[in-house]
């Protein structure tokens, strides 16, 4: 009997932690999303579903922009992270840990601070653009800051390590003998990569996408610092509704809308990729 209870006892601390700091706030937020009122007079639960429909119709462009930026930054992360992860996994030799540490190094500096340094670097008269403008390589009115490009670039930069690490882990687990076996069986190097290495690394890509796409789509720091006024993402709206307008119901409704969209998106993505296959490879 005691033996049967042991596993439950082990998950108890973590389970409680999740219950208190995740489930409870979720329920509270869910009920907020269906309330009406304001901070001064208090909020009342009136099952006001219009919070959702109003949120969707008022902020549809920011929602769509968030998803587009999310997809763009995630794709950019894959494209940039894959070769890095591949190189560390197969060519890193004895220095693998050093390279991984370098990948994680930016985390030792505050996320916000790093994003501000981008703003400083890429400012219209900053140290990158002004020399280029001076020598006439770029037109005087050229700017990077306050563009969608700057936001996506910032997002890509900030979340890159979250893509590198899971892909690295997946590649690291690929037995080099499998690559040799593929080559021995007449596969040219590109074929060996496409037919053996890449499929075996998909669980890592899958995990990396989850770890970047979700936070990227909900990010507000990059668009605040790098995006100016025309590139607001849904994260900025939610943040403003909470902290500036104190319109908690609307903010909560938008948060849940975003969450629902992301969950559906991930579900479709997993379906398309064939999670069963992905998980099967992951647990081989």
């Amino acid at each position, binding site marked *: 009997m005691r033996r049967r209870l042991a596993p439950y006892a082990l998950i108890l601390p973590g389970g409680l932690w999740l219950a208190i700091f995740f489930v409870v706030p979720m329920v509270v937020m869910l009920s907020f999303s269906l309330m009406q009122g304001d901070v001064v007079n208090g909020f009342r639960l009136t099952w006001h579903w219009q919070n959702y429909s109003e949120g969707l119709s008022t902020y549809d462009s920011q929602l769509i922009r968030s998803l587009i930026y999310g997809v763009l930054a995630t794709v950019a992360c894959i494209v940039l992270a894959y070769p890095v992860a591949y190189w560390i996994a197969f060519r890193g030799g004895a220095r693998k840990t050093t390279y991984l540490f370098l990948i994680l190094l930016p985390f030792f500096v505050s996320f916000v601070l790093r994003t501000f340094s981008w703003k400083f670097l890429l400012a219209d008269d900053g140290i990158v653009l002004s020399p280029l403008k001076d020598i006439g390589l770029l037109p005087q009115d050229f700017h990077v800051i306050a563009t969608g490009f700057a936001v996506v670039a910032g997002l890509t930069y900030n979340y890159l390590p979250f893509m590198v690490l899971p892909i690295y882990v997946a590649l690291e687990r690929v037995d080099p003998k*499998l690559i040799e076996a593929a*080559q021995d069986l007449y596969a040219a190097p590109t074929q060996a990569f496409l037919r053996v290495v890449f499929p075996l690394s998909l669980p890592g890509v899958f995990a990396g996408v989850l770890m970047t796409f979700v936070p990227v789509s909900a990010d507000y720091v990059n668009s605040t610092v790098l995006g100016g006024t025309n590139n607001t993402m849904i994260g900025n709206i939610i943040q403003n509704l909470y902290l500036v307008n104190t319109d908690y119901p609307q903010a909560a409704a938008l948060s849940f809308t975003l969450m629902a969209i992301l969950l559906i998106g991930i579900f479709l993505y997993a379906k398309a990729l064939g999670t069963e296959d992905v998980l*099967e490879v992951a647990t081989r």
Partner: protein
Amino acid sequence: MTQTEEADSAIGTELAAIELKGIVKTFHSHGDAVAAVKGVDVTIGEGEFFSLLGPSGCGKTTTMRMIAGFDEPTEGDVFLHGKNVVGVPPNKRDVNMVFQSYALFPHMSVLENVAFGLRRKGVAKDEAARRAGEMLEIVDLKGREKRRPRELSGGQQQRVALARALVNRPSALLLDEPLGALDLKLRQAMQVELKRIQREVGITFVYVTHDQNEALTMSDRIAVMNDGRIEQLGSPREIYERPASRFVAGFIGTSNVLSGTVSRTGSGKAIVEPGPGERIMVSHEAVPGDEIELTVRPEKIDVRSDPPDGDGCALRGTVNEVVYLGMFTNYNVTTSTGAEVVVFVQNVSSADDVATRGDSVWLSWDPRHSYVIGA
């Protein structure tokens, strides 16, 4: 390297399947140069079952990897059917490898694994699947086509690995300790199986092993390697009965090494006479006074209590130990010269032991069974 004439003639006149000429491989790691292979010359004939036998670290895998193309020789040339393939990548070499760890693709079914090579060579999907299915039948895995490798037992995975290589009908199959991961029973069954398959498909097999019994039972010829070189090349019988060096004698089975000073010679024989009535004879060109070392296998020696008649080899000794082994009785005898000699006596009758511990005995054998080492 010692290469006997019989071994040379086994090659025949047709183009050799594999020819290694002066192969040297030096690895550089952490600033040190490691000489893994120090000059190997070998010619392997078409359809031959050729084994590379030697202790761990002697360079067997490295030699094989140079044939497959995973490593390039530091010096020397590799010829496949007369064509120098140095610099040709593995995917363009018409040989296939069976890895010790099998290296099956975990994300593919058994059938996809076996069809992989054919597909890369441009064989249409249906045709590749058909041929892969046929090959799976040969290795007795019909009905397992849709399984994933990890859903198979070790022996079954081994056969998938074999099928995956054989289906391509390579000009040679390279097997690096393919049975190393199997238990003894399965290993022996697979040895028989491998030999049957090799006869059936008629493809040249280059077989790496450090198990001498495996090499002796399966091979047409064996190259015994030691420290990056080939010590001896020959048929299993030659290697077993006429070891060319002390190393080979010690590595293959149990062997007795005797040494002495030649006292007389005559009609191509050297004779050592350690004591009265004792003589060791061996076919060898020598002059009196030469020091020689010779071997004789344990099962060739007789143990008896009185001096043998006739003019065979005879040595006196004292029995140290008698071990009954069922089919054989194993005698450990210290000779008058101080050498330790092992004798296997077949238990033909149920009579008592020929001798017991502490007995004085005579050892005798036919001179044709002693061979001078390094002759």
